[in-house]
C-alpha cells in the first residue's frame, strides 16, 4: 500500500516535470511561432497566397476552405472519412463480445402509436425533425459556397435519427437500423468517394482529378463546373459515411445499455 503511494507520487512528479519543461521551453523562446498579424511570415505568404489568388479559378469553389479540403487536399479528406468508418467498425467489433440487453418486441403498429409521453415533445418532434433534415441537405449542397459540407450534414442527419431513437423511451417510432447495416452503409459511403476518385482515370486524369471526370468538358468554365460536380459527389459520400457511422456507434452502445429512467 505504502509502496503504491510512493509509486504514484513519483509518477505525479514526473508528469509535472514534463509539463514544466514544455512550458519552460515556450517562455525561453518567445519568438518560436510567427505573430498572428505578421503579414511577412512564410506561413502567411507562401501556400496561402496561392490558394487565395487561384482557388476560385482552379476549383470553382467560392469557399476557400472547401477548395482546400475537398479539392487540393481531397486525398487527406478521403482518409479522414475512412477514420470515421474505421471507428464505427472498431466500436462494433470491440463491443460485440458484450451481451445485448433484451428489450420488449413491439409491432410496427404499436410503435407508431407510441408517443413521447408529452404533447409538447410530440408536436416538437414533428416540427424539428423535418427541419433538421432539410437543413442537412442545405448544408450539404451549400458547402461549396459558404460554411458547411459533408461532415456537418452527416452529423445533422444522424441527429435527426438520434432524436427519434432516444426520446421515445428507447424504442424508435420509425423502426431502427441494425448496427451491422449501418456499418455496411458507411462502407458504401466511403466507396462513393473512392469511385469519384477512380472515375477521372477513365478520362486520363489522376486519382481525384475532378477536372477530368469523363463527362465531356472542353472549356475552362465547364471544367470548373466538373470540379463542382466532383466536390458534390465526394461530399455525398462523406454524408452517407458520417451519418451511418454515428448511427452505428449509437446503436452499438444503446443495444448494450439498460436505462431505467
Amino acid at each position, binding site marked *: 500500500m505504502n509502496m503504491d503511494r510512493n509509486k504514484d507520487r513519483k509518477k505525479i512528479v514526473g508528469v509535472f516535470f514534463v509539463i514544466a519543461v514544455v512550458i519552460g*521551453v515556450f517562455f*525561453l*523562446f518567445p*519568438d*518560436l*511561432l*510567427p505573430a498572428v498579424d505578421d503579414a511577412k*511570415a*512564410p*506561413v*502567411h*505568404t*507562401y*501556400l*496561402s497566397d*496561392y*490558394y487565395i489568388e487561384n482557388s476560385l479559378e482552379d476549383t470553382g469553389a467560392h469557399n476557400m476552405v472547401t477548395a482546400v479540403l475537398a*479539392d*487540393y*487536399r*481531397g*486525398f*487527406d479528406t478521403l*482518409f*479522414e472519412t*475512412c*477514420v470515421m*468508418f*474505421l*471507428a464505427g*467498425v*472498431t466500436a*462494433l*467489433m*470491440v463491443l*460485440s*463480445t458484450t451481451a445485448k440487453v433484451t428489450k420488449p418486441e413491439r409491432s410496427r403498429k404499436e410503435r407508431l402509436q407510441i408517443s413521447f409521453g408529452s404533447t409538447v415533445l410530440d408536436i416538437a418532434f414533428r416540427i424539428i425533425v423535418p427541419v433538421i433534415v432539410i437543413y442537412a441537405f442545405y448544408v450539404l449542397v451549400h458547402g461549396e459556397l459558404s460554411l458547411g459540407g459533408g461532415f456537418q450534414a452527416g452529423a445533422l442527419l444522424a441527429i435527426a435519427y438520434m432524436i427519434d431513437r432516444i426520446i421515445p423511451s428507447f424504442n424508435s417510432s420509425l423502426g431502427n437500423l441494425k448496427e*451491422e447495416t449501418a*456499418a*455496411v452503409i458507411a*462502407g*458504401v459511403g*466511403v*466507396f462513393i468517394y*473512392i469511385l469519384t*476518385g*477512380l472515375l*477521372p*482515370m477513365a478520362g*486520363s*486524369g*489522376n*486519382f*481525384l*482529378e*475532378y*477536372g*477530368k471526370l469523363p463527362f465531356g468538358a472542353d472549356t475552362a468554365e465547364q471544367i470548373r463546373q466538373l470540379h463542382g460536380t466532383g466536390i458534390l459527389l465526394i461530399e455525398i459520400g462523406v454524408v452517407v459515411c458520417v451519418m451511418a457511422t454515428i448511427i452505428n456507434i449509437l446503436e452499438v452502445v444503446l443495444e448494450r445499455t439498460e436505462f431505467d429512467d
Partner: protein
Amino acid sequence: MNLFFISHIPVLIVVIPLCAAVLCPLLSRLSPSLGKRTVIVFLFVVFVLSLIQLAGIVQSGEAVHYYLGGWEPPYGVEFVIDGVNGIIIVLVSFIGAMTALFSSPFEEADKNAPFKSAGYYSILCFLVIGLLGIASTGDAFNLYVFMEIVALSGYGLIAIGEEKGPIAAFRYLLTGTIGASMYLLGIGFLYSATGTLNMADLAVRLQRVDNLPLIAIAMACLIVGFGIKMALFPLHGWQPAAHSYAHPAADPMIAGVMIKIPAYAMFRFFFCIFDSSLPMMKTIFNIIGIMAVLGILYGSLKALRYDKYNKILAYSSIGQVGYIALGFAIGNFYGIAGAVFHILSHAFMKTGLFYTSAAFKYRYGIHYTDRLGQVYRKMPVTCGALVVLALSMIGLPPFAGFFGKWYLALGAIQNGQYLYVAVLIISSLLSAIYFFRIFEKMFMGEKTVSEPAAPEEYYGYGKLTGKTEVPLQMLIPIVSAALMIIALGLGNSFIVNGILRTTIMEVL
C-alpha cells in the same frame, strides 16, 4: 508493358485494398466468406503491383512521382516512391497479404454472425493501407493522416485480442495519441517556419530558415512522436502488453511491421528533410544513439526474464528497434543501409516468429514456453521455420539478421564508434541465450505438449480435429517468412547496392 494503369500504380497500391476494406461488410452480407476472400485476393494483387513498381524504379533509377488530384506539389498531395520506400512497400504488401491468408483459419466465416470475420478483415486491411500510405507519401500532413489510420486499426486489433487486450489497447491509445500529437506539433512548427507541407519542398525551404531553436524543438517533437510509435526506449511502455495480448492472427502484422514503418518515416525526416550540415545534427544523432544503445541492452535483458513466448518476442523487438535507430545515429552510408536492411529483415523475422506463436496458440493454446516440450514432433514444419527465424534473430550467417548487423558494424567502425560495435555483439549474445532457452525446451525438454484429454480442457483457437500441424493457410505464411529470411540473406548485396544505394547516396 505500356498498359494504362502502369502510371497509376502508386495510388492503386493504396486504393485497391481500400475498396476491399470498405466493401468487406457489404460483401459478407451477400455471402459470408466473400468479403474475407476479396480482401485476401486484393492484397495479393497489391503485392504484384508493388513488385512491378519496384522493378520500374530499379530499371530507371529515378523516383516515381504521382500527383493526387492532378495538383502539382506543393499545392496538392503527392506520392514519391524511390528505392528505399519502393522496397518497403513490397515488404508491407507481402506481409499484409500473407497475414490476411494466415488469419483465415482464425476467422472462419460464420453464417449467423457474418460481421465478425468481415469486421476483422476490414480492420486488418486498413492497417495494411495505413502502412502502405505512410511508406508512399511525400507529404508531411498526409503521413499524419495515414498514421491515424494505422493507430486506429491497431487499437481495434489489440482490443479484440485476448483477455487483457482491451486494457493493453487503452494504454496504447493514450500513449499513441500523445505520439501522434507530438508528430503533429512537430510538423506544425515546420509549417509555421516554411509555409509548406510537401517533404521535398520542406527540405528546400528549411535551408533558408535561420530560427535554430524552432528547428531543434520540431526535431525533439518528431523524435518523441516517432519514438512512441516505434517503441524506442524509453518510450516503449505500451509495447510489451500490446504485442502480447493482440489478436493472435493480426499480431504478426502489429509486431512485425507496425513499429517499423515509423522508423522509415524517421529516416525520411532526419535524412531527407533536415539539412545534415546543421551544427545540432550531431547532438541529435548522439541522443538517438544513446536511446538506441539503452534500448538494445534493456530489451535483450528484459527478454531473459519472461517465460511467456509473446513477451520474450515483444521485449526482443524493443532491442531490435534500437538497432534501426542505431543505424540512423551512425548516419553514414553503411549505417543507413544497415538500418533499412534491418527494417526489412527484422520485419520478416518478427512476423515469422509471431506466426509460430499464433500457430502454437491455434493448435494447443500454448502461451508459455515451458509447455513447448517436444512440440517439434507434433509440428515439424512450424518448428523448422522457428529455428531458421530464431537463428537469424541471433545473427548467424547466411540468414538476413546477420547482414543487417554486419552493415551496422561496418558503419560504426567507419565512424570510429566502437561502443556501438560492442553493444551489437553483447546483445547478439543475450539474444542467443533467450532463443536457445526456447530451443532447449522445445527439443530437449520433457514432453509437456499433449492432446487435451477432454474438450473442455482445450484452449486452442482451432477445432479439435486430431491433426497436429496447422492448416495450409497458416503453413504458407510461416514457411514463406523463413524462406524470405534466407533469400534476403543471400541477396543482401543486391538489395543494398542495387536498390538502396542510389537513394541513400542522394541524401547524404
